[in-house]
């Protein structure tokens, strides 16, 4: 047994205690940091709910904006947001997935491709106000869409496009090579392989990434302000060329009114917005969990 207790045995055991304590302290600190972010979220939600919940009612969802707080509602804003998203979702999804497939499956690894790729990651970092300026100049003015659903929708589409491209690229890249090989091995053409194997497999990943991007689009205020969409809209749009208003605009407007009741309405509006967001995020999580185990 003489060779069992090797060098530094004593010392090593003495030090283990200290090392384990250090580990515990660090773990505790990290846990506190995690808890802190959770607490922030809870405080944030609590304050909003406490202020806004009493104002939530069926009428609130059913009414148009009004100068009388007790009659004011967010129907136009909710429906407007839905309309806007009806433009954003297909536009951004089609272009996003299309770009991702081009870059991952077709593009040669040359300078042009690298350049496009770099450009996309640049674009992802451009502030949303700047997209607002773009939307104002191109869609509102140059294309003459005015402050319509289409103008705002396209602006938001461009805003989320880079995020969706990147998420889709990751999803496409995650498709196991073996599946593509299986398809090619059966004599499938490239597009057949992409459309029948790659895309279906990547869809959950694409959806998860995109939903998170879309939920960002729903909450974005700055580009809408810059594009200049109106706030008082007491009718529902009947097409994409109609004017509309959106949830964040309505909320922003209410918070800047003198009357306290409007501030509470804003909180109620925020609750509605958050519910929409959490619903979207839940769908994303559900999709992710559902398909993760493949």
């Amino acid at each position, binding site marked *: 047994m003489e060779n069992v207790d090797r060098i530094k045995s004593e010392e090593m055991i003495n030090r283990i205690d200290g090392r384990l304590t250090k580990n515990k302290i660090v773990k505790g600190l990290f846990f506190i940091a995690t808890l802190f972010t959770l607490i922030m979220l809870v405080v944030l939600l609590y304050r909003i709910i406490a202020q806004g919940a009493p104002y939530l009612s069926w009428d609130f969802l059913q009414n148009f904006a009004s*100068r009388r707080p007790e009659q004011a509602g967010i129907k136009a804003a909710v429906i407007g947001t839905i309309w806007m998203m009806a433009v954003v979702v297909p536009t951004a999804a089609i272009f996003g997935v299309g770009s991702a497939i081009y870059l991952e499956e077709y593009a040669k690894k040359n300078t042009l491709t690298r350049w496009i790729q770099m450009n996309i990651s640049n674009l992802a970092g451009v502030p949303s106000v700047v997209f607002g300026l773009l939307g104002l100049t191109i869609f509102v003015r140059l294309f003459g869409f005015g402050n319509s659903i289409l103008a705002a929708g396209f602006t938001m589409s461009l805003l989320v496009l880079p995020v969706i491209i990147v998420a889709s690229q990751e999803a496409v890249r995650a498709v196991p090579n073996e599946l593509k090989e299986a398809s090619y091995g059966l004599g499938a053409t490239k597009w057949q392989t992409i459309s029948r194997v790659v895309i279906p497999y990547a869809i959950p990943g694409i959806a998860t990434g995109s939903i998170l991007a879309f939920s960002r689009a729903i909450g974005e205020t700055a580009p809408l302000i810059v594009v*200049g969409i109106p706030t008082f809209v007491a009718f529902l749009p009947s097409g994409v060329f109609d004017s509309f208003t959106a949830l964040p605009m309505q909320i922003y407007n209410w918070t*800047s009114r*003198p009357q306290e009741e409007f501030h509470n309405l804003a909180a109620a509006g925020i609750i509605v917005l958050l519910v929409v967001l959490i619903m979207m995020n839940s769908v994303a999580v559900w999709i992710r969990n559902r398909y993760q185990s493949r």
Partner: protein
Amino acid sequence: ADTGTEEGEKTEQTDAGDAQLQGEISIDGSSTVYPIMEAVAEEFMLEQPDVKVTVGLSGTGGGFEKFIAGETAMSNASRPIKEEEAAALKEAGIEYTEFELAKDGLSVVVNKDNDWVDQLTVDELKKLWLDNGTAKKWSDIREGWPEEEIKFYSPGTDSGTFDYFDEVILDGGQIDKAATLSEDDNVLVQGVTGDKNAIGYFGYAYYIENKDSLKVVPIVNEEGTAVEPNAETIESGEYAPLSRPLFTYVSNAAIKDDAATAAYVQFTLENAAALAEDVGYVSLPQEKYDEQLSTLEGLK
């Protein structure tokens, strides 16, 4: 809705109350005027549900930008149109008419616990707010006031309210650079409420809404009397020089060509008085509205 209907029926020349109109009216501009225009639009659409009115709040300048681009039929403003804007409209071939809708009394307020400020003259206001490169104390303004540093709260430099204050009090000079500026008047209310040495100014509506937590300062007018802002003194013009007019600018072509717009403007003028008060502004004397209604008739 009651006021609207009554007056709509009373005025014979109009068909706003009877015939069902259709169309779209796009309005944008001042956020100060927004609550009035929102109220008008709300009431109007109860009567004419097929006319789609939208009201935005891009600010007076932002509103004119769209008005010049021909994107809106009406543009709200919390100050008279500027020369550059008038010129641009001319160049764009847009003729327009200015309608005054109501008055806003810029209210100068201090903290509830401020027991020394009883009134202020225009000169004192100027002394207070004009930048002189150093921090000011209350004692610098009037003998006997405490030797405490003053904290200033002002609407953002890009608001109509600031513009107006700058023009009538500061003569276009530099506002105290230490002033806290905010685009959101509610924030100013909070600032003044929370600081004993604070002074601020903002629209009358914000004062009324928070009158329990603020102290409004009477302002000495040209006649030499200190006047507190309220509905009467603002309407009568006694509260001077800090009462400012609120406008909407309408495209003549829109009034002429579009029955809906014409009806809407008429409705606005007929109801502005009541609705302005509703949302915390002060109406004009009735003659003023009647006068503008006849101007409108001439444009149809």
